[in-house]
């Protein structure tokens, strides 16, 4: 039983003239870009340049912040997801998110992953079991946890917890996965595992990853967008951005003139 | 103004300790100064009047309050706590006057470690305890009224024997028609609403109807202690009144004073002791009515002439004090015995 609806071809995410304000603070300034389907796109740039803010527009998480105002259009599957009429609740099922700090629920591993599907109406135990198993396998966590699904998720290591969070997002079968600096709280080994995972994921999902680690962006992404002080400075294929940036600002950032 | 000088000393002494900003202390000082100033304005009379403390029986309490208010010679602070507390406080030196609706007993001495034998049958003491010699003064009488519902036409006259059957655990009557001699009574459960065992009224009532009450060989125990739930005790006369008022088959008892507040709400029962006629409880009837008990105040020895307690007692036993007694709902001494007041006044000369 597939949870996906509205399966259409060519589901790239078209971001058009998006502006975001926190009160008087103009955080995102007129960003326009086209995020390709089933590819990994990285948002890079120095701290506070708005990458996370833009990311959060894509699943309407900014709605939860008081005083935050978003203007512009983000077109996906023929629908402007920024439109007030679009209910964020079903949207977030199709656009999943993994946060910076691993944040499993204080429940068992099984319940963590089953939470999403249960919310969306699946109560049949067999089906839930299948979903849990599949998600854990897809997140490369099955080997380590398959035997102890009833254990508390809080007992896992940082890296394992993050993969659990990824499994949790996968369980509701989204089409897009948003990752907000997913490895910044992890050690290099765990990071490597997650990066491998991302490579696998892009076969089936559109992945957008925010990272302040340039090398990670270079390793993992197909497209990269460089942001500075709320503006999109340059966007293109990762190879090109890194080896042959068009903008001087981009080049300065790459070469470490500022951080 | 003792309070404020001690406050002031205290503030200085604990300034080292006090962590709050000076403003807090400042505010406190200003506030208390204002209040003391204001209180000086409002308080008219009492500046330098002697103070007395009076405590004890809750039966005597309303009378004590009335006397304390009308007596001009002292500023008397009155509290309750029960007869035991009253006697205890007197013996502890905590109070100047101890009100009691019962007589002092050996147990009262025993509680303070004194010899119980020193207390006589009549509630006087042959020797002091703790340096205090409790001296008994009879100040008024209380008439105990047995009450029933206004619709009750079957139990309006009861003898001591019948009261015994109703109120003790000895072959207790369960239904009204179980009671010997109440032939017209309905076959309905008896419900009792009456004072609890802490009350002096309770003590007095059962002393009347249970032979050897409080001694070895006490003939029976009270219905309350039978545990059958028929006797609903209450420390609150208001409760008893309302319960009997609302329940056709209820019976209770309390001080006549209380009944007299709202005489239309209940009926009183005419009582007959062994071999006497049925008498109605009333203020006028008290010489004949079997259930009339004395109310006492205990002091430390006989206060000397000139002492404010002496003046107070003279007031209470004199006409002025006795005139108030019926207003409070109790019985003045001369209705019981003409000489009772004067013989006690004589001791105070």
């Amino acid at each position, binding site marked *: 039983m597939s949870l996906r609806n509205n399966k259409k071809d060519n589901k790239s995410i078209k971001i058009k003239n998006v502006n975001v304000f926190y009160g008087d603070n103009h955080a995102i300034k007129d960003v326009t870009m086209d995020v390709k389907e089933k590819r990994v796109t990285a948002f890079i740039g120095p701290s506070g340049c708005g990458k996370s803010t833009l990311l959060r527009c894509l699943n309407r998480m900014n709605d939860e912040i008081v005083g935050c105002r978003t203007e512009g259009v983000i077109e996906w599957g023929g629908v402007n997801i920024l439109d007030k009429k679009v209910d964020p609740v079903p949207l977030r099922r199709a656009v999943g998110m993994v946060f910076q700090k691993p944040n499993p629920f204080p429940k068992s591993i099984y319940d963590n992953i089953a939470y999403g599907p249960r919310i969306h109406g699946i109560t049949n135990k067999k089906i839930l079991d299948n979903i849990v198993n599949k998600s854990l396998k897809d997140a490369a966590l099955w080997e380590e946890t398959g035997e102890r699904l009833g254990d508390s998720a809080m007992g896992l290591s940082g890296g394992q917890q993050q993969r659990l969070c990824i499994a*949790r997002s996968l369980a509701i079968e989204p089409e897009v996965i948003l990752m907000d600096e997913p490895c910044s709280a992890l050690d290099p080994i765990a990071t490597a595992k997650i990066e491998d995972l991302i490579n696998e994921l892009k076969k089936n999902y559109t992945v957008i990853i925010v990272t302040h680690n340039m090398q990670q962006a270079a390793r993992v992404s197909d497209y990269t967008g460089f942001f500075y002080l709320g503006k999109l400075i340059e966007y293109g294929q990762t190879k090109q951005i890194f080896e042959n940036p068009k903008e001087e600002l981009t080049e300065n950032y790459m070469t470490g003139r500022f951080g | 103004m003792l*309070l404020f000088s001690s406050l002031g000393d205290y503030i200085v002494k604990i300034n080292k300790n006090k962590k709050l900003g000076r403003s807090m202390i400042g505010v406190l000082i200003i506030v208390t100064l204002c209040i003391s100033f204001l209180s000086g304005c409002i308080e008219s009379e009492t500046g330098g009047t002697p103070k007395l403390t009076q405590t004890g029986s809750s039966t005597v309490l309303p009378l004590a309050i009335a006397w304390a208010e009308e007596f001009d010679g002292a500023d008397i602070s009155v509290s309750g*706590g029960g007869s035991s507390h009253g006697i205890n406080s007197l013996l502890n030196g905590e109070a100047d006057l101890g009100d009691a609706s019962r007589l002092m007993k050996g147990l009262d001495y025993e509680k303070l470690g004194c010899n119980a034998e020193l207390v006589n049958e009549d509630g006087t003491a042959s020797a002091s305890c703790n340096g205090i010699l409790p001296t008994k003064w009879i100040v008024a009488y209380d008439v105990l009224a047995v009450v029933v519902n206004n619709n009750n036409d079957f139990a309006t006259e009861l003898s001591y024997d019948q009261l015994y059957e109703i109120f003790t655990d000895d072959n207790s009557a369960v239904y009204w028609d179980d009671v010997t001699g109440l032939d017209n009574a309905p076959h309905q459960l008896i419900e009792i609403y009456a004072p609890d065992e*802490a009350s002096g009224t309770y003590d007095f009532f059962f002393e009347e109807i249970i032979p050897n009450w409080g001694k070895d060989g006490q003939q029976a125990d009270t219905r309350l202690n039978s545990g059958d739930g028929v006797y609903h005790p*209450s420390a609150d006369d208001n409760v008893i009144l309302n319960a009997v008022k609302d329940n056709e088959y209820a019976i209770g008892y309390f001080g006549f004073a209380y009944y007299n507040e709202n005489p239309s709400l209940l009926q009183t029962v005419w009582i007959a002791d062994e071999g006497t006629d049925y008498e109605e409880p009333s203020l006028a009837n008290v010489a004949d009515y079997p259930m009339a008990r004395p109310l006492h105040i205990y002091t430390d020895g006989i206060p000397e002439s000139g002492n404010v307690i002496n003046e107070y007692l003279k007031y209470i036993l004199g006409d002025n004090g006795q005139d108030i007694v019926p207003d409070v709902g109790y019985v003045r001494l001369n209705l019981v015995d003409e000489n009772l007041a004067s013989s006690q006044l004589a001791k105070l000369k």
Partner: protein
Amino acid sequence: MSKIFRKFKDKFRVDEDNPFKSHFNLTEKTITFLLFCSASTAIIISAAIIYTLLEGSLSFFNNPLVNILEFLTGSKWVPSGSNPIFGILPLLSGTILIAGGALIIATPLGISAALFLSEFTSVKLRSIIKPIIEILAGIPSIVYGFFALMFISTFFRDNFGASYFNAISAIIVIAVMILPIVISISDDAIKAVPNHLRETSLALGATKWETSTKVVLPAASSGIVASVLLGLARAIGETMVVVLAAGSIAKLTFNPFDEVMTMSAYIAKVATGDIPPGVAVSAGFAVGLVLFLMTYIINLIASKVVFEIKTGTTVKSKKQKRKKFLIGYFSKIYEFVLLGLSSILNGLHHIKNIIWKPRSLTLDRRYWKQRIGVTLIGGSIIFVAVFLVLLLVYLISEGIGGLNATFFTSYPSWHPEKAGIYPVIMGSIYLMGLTLLFSAPLGVGAAVYLNEFAKDTRYTRFLRRIIQNLAGVPSIVFGLMGLTIFVRLFDFGPSLLSGSLILTIMALPIIVVSTEEAVKSVPDSFREAARGVGSTKWQTVRHHVLPSASPGIMTGIILSISRAIGETAPILFIVSFFAKTAPSGIFDSFMALPAQIFYWTTQPKEEFHTLAASTIIVLLLILFAMNAVAIIIRQRAQSRRDW
């Protein structure tokens, strides 16, 4: 000989080689010592309570009439007469019936209200509702008792044939009394759930309602359970309401329309001195001991959790738990309780799913669930508001007529039309002032010592726990202790001094806790900066910590004094019911507002009930003013705070 002398001199001489040698600072040492003493008074107080209870209980159990097994398991309580029987079960059943009933009502209401307040209200709505709940918390129990007897009990008598005194009126009123405890601590627990858990849930496509009920509530569960436990302890110890409304027959029953006697009510009877001296009186101490132990254990378990939530500290290592066997034992029980609760809930959920085949959960249905859910829990707030309105309207309608000039200037005459409360108000004010004088330095000193001066040793942790536990002791037990120690042992008699000392002890734990909170909230950077320029500890505290913490400290003091001033049970047998003038010295006897209310409520004439209602209005106004001041101080401090 001279060597020793030189060593002694050396201590005080400035050493030229070592410019940084530490000097003996007399001020610092004295202050530290004084503060240490303040903190340690908690131990003295606890010892006094235990001494009082143990002494009385021992004399009780030594009495040949008494059998300890029968005491613990007997089902008849007949304390006087020729054949006294002392079986505590009827008293225990009374307590459990009333406390349990109150808990059944207050738990769902309180948790719903807390959830609603913290998750589903706007800031504006919250700022209206929170004060309402704080008002409820500030109403003294004597007022609730009056309302229970005069209004609620009448309703049940008329419509349900309840007996004159009944448990149900006490149950309802006590439920409302413990609501603020459950709400405020559950609210804290819910707020303490980290926001990223909510975010994650929302990001998975859950609705707000689903997030609140499936993620936030379970995460806050230990705090919520703790709040319920604290409410339970409070209900168990409640005295004035049950004395006025529930009755004095010791009956082993669970019928709420019956009259019952609770443990606290029996102790009150003993404490008011009405019971003839002897074994019945010492039985009161034994019952007090049982009551104390019950509330102590419950508070022990719950306070630990609450402390952790409030201060954001996590449970210290499991090592510590294992060290103290008893504590660990109870923590284990607590964990089991939580586990049991959650499995019961799970089981119920499964059963529900079997009975009702769950229909497919469309988005629409989920939103309907949300709407219904939020409405239901919002209803709990409405219930609270309605109760409060009912209470206030009743009080005002009964009492406002009596508020004339005579009322405020004369003394409590036995002629109701002449009666007034001037000396009573003065008595309460003096009581308040003295209590403030004693408790503020002690409480603030103790808190400052614990937070700023003391190292984290076993002794300080012990002290802190003792202080927290004092907060949970029923007020009637303080009364017993005060009577034994201050009135009798120290021979202060029934005076302002005794009364204020008792109230001081009651106010102390609250002041300590709120001062600690205020002091803890001062950022460490202030202290570091001060120490960095060479201040001593005391200088740091005096010049930097205390000024920043003072709004919180003052608020705490005001609130604790206002709580103390509404207390009736502990001073009931020290207070007078009549005097013409206000007290003029600390050894004078006195009258107090709550006690006068009690006295007039129990008088026959209706006019005295009206006087009681009028006095209640005055008392509430004073309390309201004090609370308003506290809130204003707090608001101004918050807005002025720039850190």
